[in-house]
């Protein structure tokens, strides 16, 4: 369980995250949605201790992220950011192997090697494991970073806009992969998403933020509803039920 209590972060006089409190239960896939500048990515960075908070507290299974040792937390919670520009020129295998760093500090055990091979196969990059990252397409690179998070094998996995810059095929593949992390491995997956229809189709829970505050939270059935979406995004839209999923038409 991730408990977020009164978390605040401001730049100058404007609060980007404004006294947000919520509880993310263990298991399942939670999407965080909201307009640009709502504070979604900032909140995710704070939860994963990449960014210090100005006030409040975040507990991951009772561990305070501000005070818990880095490597202890790294075995509980991992995050994949959106801009993964890395200077070091690494092969897919090298990159994924650093997911084991919290456990082995760079000296890989037989167990680590097995984790690495399994993660690479799981994201379908087996044939590319010796390629350098700069020799891969955008979709493949994205999957390599997901494999690294997978290899880190934490109970909580956070993804900040993982579908950015992906075409339809790769976006769907990535989303299915995240869904399987929750279904097959019982991971708690938290994803910041821009595409409301991906959120509707793949989430167990949706959290909506606006102006740095928590606006609404609930199941896709509660959340994907014209009045709520209007309140979150300021956009008129219609909701269509297609089979079990609700799709939002905000184009016209």
């Amino acid at each position: 369980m991730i408990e977020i209590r009164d978390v605040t972060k401001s730049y100058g006089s404007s609060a980007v995250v404004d006294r947000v409190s919520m509880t993310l239960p263990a298991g399942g896939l939670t999407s965080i949605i909201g307009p640009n500048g709502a504070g979604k990515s900032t909140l995710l960075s704070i939860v994963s201790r990449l960014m210090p908070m100005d006030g409040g507290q975040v507990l991951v299974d009772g561990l305070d992220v501000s005070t818990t040792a880095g490597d202890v937390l790294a075995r509980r919670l991992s995050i994949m950011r959106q801009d993964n520009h890395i200077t070091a020129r690494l092969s897919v295998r090298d990159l994924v192997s650093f997911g084991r760093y919290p456990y082995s500090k760079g000296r890989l055990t037989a167990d680590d090697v097995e984790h690495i091979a399994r993660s690479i196969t799981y994201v379908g990059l087996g044939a590319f494991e010796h390629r350098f990252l700069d020799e891969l397409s955008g979709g493949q690179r994205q999957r390599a970073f997901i494999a690294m998070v997978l290899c880190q094998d934490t109970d909580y996995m956070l993804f900040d806009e993982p579908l950015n810059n992906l075409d339809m095929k790769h976006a769907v593949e990535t989303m299915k992969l995240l869904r399987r992390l929750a279904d097959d491995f019982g991971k708690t997956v938290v994803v910041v998403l821009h595409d409301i229809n991906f959120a509707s189709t793949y989430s167990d829970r949706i959290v909506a933020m606006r102006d740095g505050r928590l606006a609404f939270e609930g199941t896709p059935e509660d959340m994907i509803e014209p009045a709520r979406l209007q309140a979150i995004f300021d956009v008129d839209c219609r909701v269509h039920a297609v089979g079990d999923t609700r799709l939002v038409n905000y184009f016209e």
Partner: protein
Amino acid sequence: MATSRPRKAIHRSTGARKDRTMKSLLIAVPVILLLAVVSVLTGVGSLASGLDGGRGWLLIVESRVPRTLALMLAGTGLAVAGTIMQMLARNRFVEPSTAGTAESAALGMLMTMIFAPTLPVAGKMAVAALTALAGTALFLKILRQIPLRSVLMVPLVGIMLGGVISAVTTFVAYRYDMMQSMGTWMSGDFSGVLRGRYELLWIAFALTLIAYVTAARFTVIGMGEDIARNVGLDYNKVVTLGLCIVSMVTATVVATVGMVPFLGLIVPNIISLVVGDNLRRTLPLIAATGAGLVLACDIVGRMIIAPYEIPVGTVMGVIGSVVFLYLLLSRRTHAS
């Protein structure tokens, strides 16, 4: 999986990188040993006059071998320092001579010459290491303030910072009539190396070993602050360790033989292109190549206008600037 082919497949082979690194190392080591032998045999004095205790033997023990060792130690240290610097600054085009490190070390040396001229060389070196540390830390601090970090902006900032520090040093050196000393610090010259005058360079070698033991950490740093924190690395601690290694290596080299520019830039870049940047694996190759390149440049410098010499720093400056330009112009996707 039917994904689009990458634009530029530099290595089509999917053979293990580990093998490639081992192979490269197996080629590099004999080449370096050969260069070392050539280096020992190169010189004005004749070795023929009795190797058993005669003048030739004296020449080898007192001058030739120390010089060759000094070259290898300095080359190893600077190549590794350059690599670490590039991971810390997250930029391919920095090294101690494009980040203000060498200039700061020279400033430190000048200060000791003025205020504590009787200090032994080791003491002077320690002061130079401190000023180098301060200068490099300042460089990284400035980098953090630049919001949009373009690839070329980073070395430019470093060269400008170095220029400012160098101007201060020159001004002071001019006032105290020490311009000549300054020249010896900033331009690597191994012609004065004798037994008893280069041994401090073993400190640089010890630091290289420390860098090897902690190599994985620097690779993680090169993956960026977010990823480093994500896998639980104490980011600031590792950056501090890296800064200390880079500053001390630079200071030992500046204090003993003088700065060899561009070395820390060329070697890591070439090795990165061939075998990548997983430092735990590639650092021995980087160290070996650094030693080999300095040896080669020194041999060339001794042969071109024999019996006179061109300092290795000058030879490296010429070769280095050409390779630097090549790297800038043929920038691969990974550098941008």
